[in-house]
């Protein structure tokens, strides 16, 4: 991570003992730089070298965990500014706000119900952010009890009063909640609390300078499980601050900013709040706190999060199988394409635009496009015929005619033989489907 093979090589014993499984120390160093092996494979590496390499190879943004057991989530560990360089690592954790003086059970019910299914993916909201709105330690503690009993989601405890935090932690420490926040007035107490319970600690400054200073003070106290907040709440300033924090960490390895970030949407109107939160999610917030708990608001946000954090080097796949466009009947046409999401969505869009309801048989080609899949033997007559059988198409339509992409016209004969279906060669590009459908299918 960040170190070249030669830089690593300098720290190795240079014995070429081969114990690590590589012919030379240099080869081992190269493999280490590529992340293909680990340093503990070397029998002779010195403690000093280990330390030097560990700190030099440490990710520019620390990985910080929140939660316990199955619900544990990771934040940070990012190495990039742009997703086209390399994938973003840990999707933004979404936390929904609950005030300690509102109807907590009702709100928790709504939050527990925030589960989404879309294109074969399941999404949820990971955390509840319990806010000490009342300002009373006792109210905060009893609210924490309700949270403990009312949801198994992760918890962010929001109070700047150490006494209130201590009370809530007595109830919830096992869940490893985020303790938010240490400020310049309370950081000693808050750091001790978080550290003693092994919980991540939110550190909140009044601005970037203030934040850097405060983080250093907390680091001096020996605690590093931090999530940081510049304290800004205006959309534009938060965007600038999140940018600076990420840049400083990645480009300058500026230690006080080498931590995951937390951002708070602040708009009163829930629709505006969602859009504001979307900006923070787009630009580097590791955790986003929102108030809205409506599915119609959050579905677009969790879908965007899914899109943003996909690996740009790995094609996104659509669920293979039989898909419907409109309400197809037994005499409706059947198209066939691959499960590369861009290919599939283009085809689906054009079939939809043809205004003839249809089935699309989506073949699992590992998320590759038509020609790539064909070249790779993943889009073959056998696979398509198998798909026809496996999806029960023969019971769903009263004909035996399937349209294949024009780019793989060559499959016609083999597929007819393999499946017993009649094969129509469709257009080469999805853009030709509307015309094709009008001329050949209607």
């Amino acid at each position, binding site marked *: 991570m960040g170190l070249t093979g030669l830089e690593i090589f300098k720290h190795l014993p240079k014995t070429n003992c081969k114990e690590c499984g590589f012919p030379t120390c240099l080869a081992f160093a190269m493999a280490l730089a590529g992340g293909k092996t680990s340093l503990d494979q070397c029998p002779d590496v010195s403690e000093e070298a280990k330390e030097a390499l560990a700190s030099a190879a440490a990710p520019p943004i620390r990985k910080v965990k929140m939660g316990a057991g199955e619900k544990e989530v990771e934040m940070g560990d990012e190495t990039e500014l742009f997703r086209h360089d390399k994938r973003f690592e840990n999707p933004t954790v979404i936390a929904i706000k609950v005030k300690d003086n509102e109807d907590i059970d009702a709100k928790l019910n709504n939050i527990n119900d925030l589960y989404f299914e*879309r294109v074969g993916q399941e999404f949820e909201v990971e955390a509840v952010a319990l806010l000490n709105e009342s300002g009373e330690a006792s109210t905060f503690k009893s609210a924490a009890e309700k949270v403990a009993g009312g949801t198994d989601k992760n918890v962010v405890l929001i109070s700047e009063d150490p006494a209130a935090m201590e009370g809530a932690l007595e109830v919830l420490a096992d869940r490893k909640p985020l303790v938010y926040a240490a400020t310049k007035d309370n950081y000693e107490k808050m750091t001790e609390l978080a550290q003693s319970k092994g919980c991540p600690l939110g550190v909140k400054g009044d601005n*970037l300078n203030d934040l850097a200073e405060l983080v250093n003070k907390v680091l001096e106290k020996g605690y590093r499980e931090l999530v940081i907040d510049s304290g800004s709440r205006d959309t*534009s300033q938060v965007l600038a601050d999140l940018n600076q924090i990420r840049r400083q960490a990645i480009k300058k390895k500026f230690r006080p900013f080498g931590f995951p970030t937390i951002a708070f949407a602040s708009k009163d109107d829930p629709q505006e709040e969602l859009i504001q939160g*979307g900006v923070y999610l787009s630009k580097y917030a590791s955790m986003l706190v929102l108030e809205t708990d409506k599915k119609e608001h*959050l579905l*677009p946000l969790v879908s*965007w999060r899914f899109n943003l954090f996909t690996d740009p080097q790995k094609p996104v796949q659509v669920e293979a199988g039989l898909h419907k466009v409109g309400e197809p009947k037994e005499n409706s046409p059947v198209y066939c394409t691959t499960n590369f*999401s861009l290919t599939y969505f283009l085809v689906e869009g054009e079939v939809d635009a043809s205004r003839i309801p249809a089935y699309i048989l989506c073949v699992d080609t590992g998320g590759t496009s038509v020609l790539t899949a064909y070249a790779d033997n993943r889009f073959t007559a056998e696979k398509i015929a198998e798909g026809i059988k496996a999806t029960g198409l023969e019971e769903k339509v009263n004909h035996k005619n399937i349209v294949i992409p024009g780019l793989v016209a060559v499959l016609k004969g083999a597929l007819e033989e393999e499946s017993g279906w009649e094969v129509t060669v469709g257009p080469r590009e999805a853009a030709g489907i509307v015309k094709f459908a009008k001329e050949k299918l209607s």
Partner: protein
Amino acid sequence: MAVEILKEKYRGQVREVVLGAAKDKGGTRSHTVKIGGETTLPFLHFEGNIPNRPVVAMEVWDIVPEGWPESLKSNFEDVYDDPAAWAKKCVEEYGADLIAVRFMSADPDGQDASPDDCIPTLKKVLEAVGVPLIIYGCGKSEKDNLLIGPLGEAGAGENLLLGVAEQDNFKPVASAAMANGHTVIAQSPIDINIAKQLNVLISELSTPLLDRIVIDPTVAALGYGIEYSYSIMERARFGALQGDRMLAMPFIANIGGEVWSKREAFVPHEEEATWGEQPERSMMWEATTAMALLQAGADLLVMRHPRAVELTKQNIDELMKDNSY
């Protein structure tokens, strides 16, 4: 502890493009709209200039749209069959910065209206509103090629934004723009190389057109490949800032047509229990798509739902506030 603010110094700048023409330039628009001109990535005021705010155009069709969900349609019910009144409502009530007129009547598989049938509509819309216009055909290039010349001529001097020039079909639009003082939408299929190549081709036809091109990188809706558009836009903008003049055009993002044809726009809550209520969900789908593309560098957004437009404009207001240190 003073943090030393990291500022990138880019060599390049996005070209500034003027849309519309007022009286002084031979048009009849009440004002013009400038887009582009950025010297940094979206909304990073602390390190560069963002002289022009992104703007939002609303779509007006010359026929009653088919297949729009009720929750969208109801906003235009009283003006549906009158493009001029529709445009006026978008500008006056819904705050549209521009109007994008789609001549869907020209669809050869529909009404197959002739250019002569379309010209009166263009004139009426020009008369009804003072904002600059974007002109789209029916989406079928063979027919649109016949349409764009006469429409460009009818709107001569107005500096219309004409759609769309494509790599294998850019001459009709580019010629219409050259002949009558308009601006070109250069559309490429989520491909940075084609985007660049198309700009080269257009500039070879006419060098002055280089400052009258808006790139349509082809945007996908949220959930339908938007991440590809997002990354292509980020890369192209980064290229522009690093000095690639052939990529240094503002972006237009055609959002409405993408979002409002998707399942998320239509499917009722009863069918997708985890999706929330359709009217608000579909609107938020459009607003969230716009939010994401603004972060990728969109300068001009074409949208449909009035509330989504309002949310987007508020978001732009917020993001245009100075964030210098």
